């Protein structure tokens, strides 16, 4: 493991040096040369479609309203948290404590995302909660299942099928939720995404969730991203900035 990490590290350094060199060469030449230098340093690094830019997420209702088909014990657990939520108890919702929503719930929020395409990687910067998600397209595999460290965003690898980016994410924390209805999942949740440009200004983002521990069958939904206005910038979103409701000095209503 250590040896392979080291060699992976070395490969990354070499790739970075090559990319930097290529970019410097490109800077001296035409913009077109810079573009091809960034996008084509090697077969694995090529992105057949360019998603880069700032996008607005639309049509998330399929995820917001998603009710996975749960196995009985998970259905019971889901019913219990929903009953607590109905009376205002958000215990178990990481976002109520300003923790990141994690995948796939990060796709729900109505704030822009910025997509970056660099050699071997597609990066998703989400305004909401300042999250950074890396989809590795350099051919690497997921870490072995018994070594993977559950995280909010999970471990994402991707490959291209034609002009569709096909991403696979595992290693998700079981204390995150699928959506605001408190839909739970286990640490065996797998998020499969197919991202396709359906015009210069629109991305189709198809998602299938499977959780062999919690679900009786996979659940799918599709969201849409449209290009944000040129003047729209990604804003900073540091969650713990407000005076929390618990510390706020409230007067008594007249």
């Amino acid at each position, binding site marked *: 493991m250590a040896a392979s990490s080291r060699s992976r590290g070395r490969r990354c350094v070499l790739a970075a040096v090559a990319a930097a060199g290529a970019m410097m060469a490109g800077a001296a030449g035409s913009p077109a040369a810079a573009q091809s230098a960034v996008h084509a340093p090697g077969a694995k690094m090529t992105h057949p479609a360019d998603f880069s830019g700032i996008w607005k997420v639309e049509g998330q209702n399929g995820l917001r309203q998603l009710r996975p088909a749960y196995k009985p014990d998970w259905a019971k657990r889901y019913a219990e948290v929903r009953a607590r939520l109905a009376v205002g108890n958000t215990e178990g919702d990481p976002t109520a404590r300003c923790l990141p929503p994690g995948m796939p719930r990060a796709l729900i929020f109505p704030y822009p995302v910025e997509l970056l395409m660099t050699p071997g990687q597609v990066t998703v910067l989400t305004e909401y909660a300042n999250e950074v998600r890396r989809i590795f397209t350099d051919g690497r595999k997921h870490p072995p299942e018994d070594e993977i460290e559950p995280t909010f965003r999970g471990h994402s690898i991707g490959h291209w099928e034609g002009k569709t980016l096909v991403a696979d994410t595992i290693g998700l924390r079981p204390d995150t939720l699928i959506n605001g209805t408190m839909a739970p999942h286990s640490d065996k949740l797998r998020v499969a995404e197919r991202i396709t440009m359906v015009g210069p200004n629109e991305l189709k983002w198809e998602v299938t969730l499977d959780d062999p521990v919690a679900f009786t069958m996979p659940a799918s939904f599709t969201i849409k991203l449209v290009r944000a206005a040129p003047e729209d910038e990604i804003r900073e979103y540091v969650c713990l900035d407000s005076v929390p409701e618990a510390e706020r000095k409230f*007067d008594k*209503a007249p």
Partner: protein
Amino acid sequence: MKDSQKPYGAAILAVVGTALMAFPAHAHHSQAMFDQSKDLTIEGAVQELQWTNPHSWLVVHVGEPGGASVNWQLEMGPPGKLSRVGMKRNTFKPGDKVTVRIHPMRDGRAGGQIVTLTGPDGHSFDDVR
């Protein structure tokens, strides 16, 4: 999708309705503390606009001559939400007279969630949560 929901039947539909009404997408704390079934209109003077994540808060002072003086703590969405409906951090200044329609807090504290915010120039913001 539809098939997967069948076993839950009517119970699910009821829950969907409740969840959509009471819990907008970015509920950092439960929206249940605001009574979504009640509307209250407040007229007062801006004391402070707290332009912060995950929620912005407008503190509005209501003082009646010889009567009670109350500061209302009124919640809105984050700057990223408000800026995209045209509000800026300096749109509301201390002393500005505002009219605010809110869903008040359930527990009798002087607070609420802003539904519509109308400034001294008569412009209304109605998508601020």
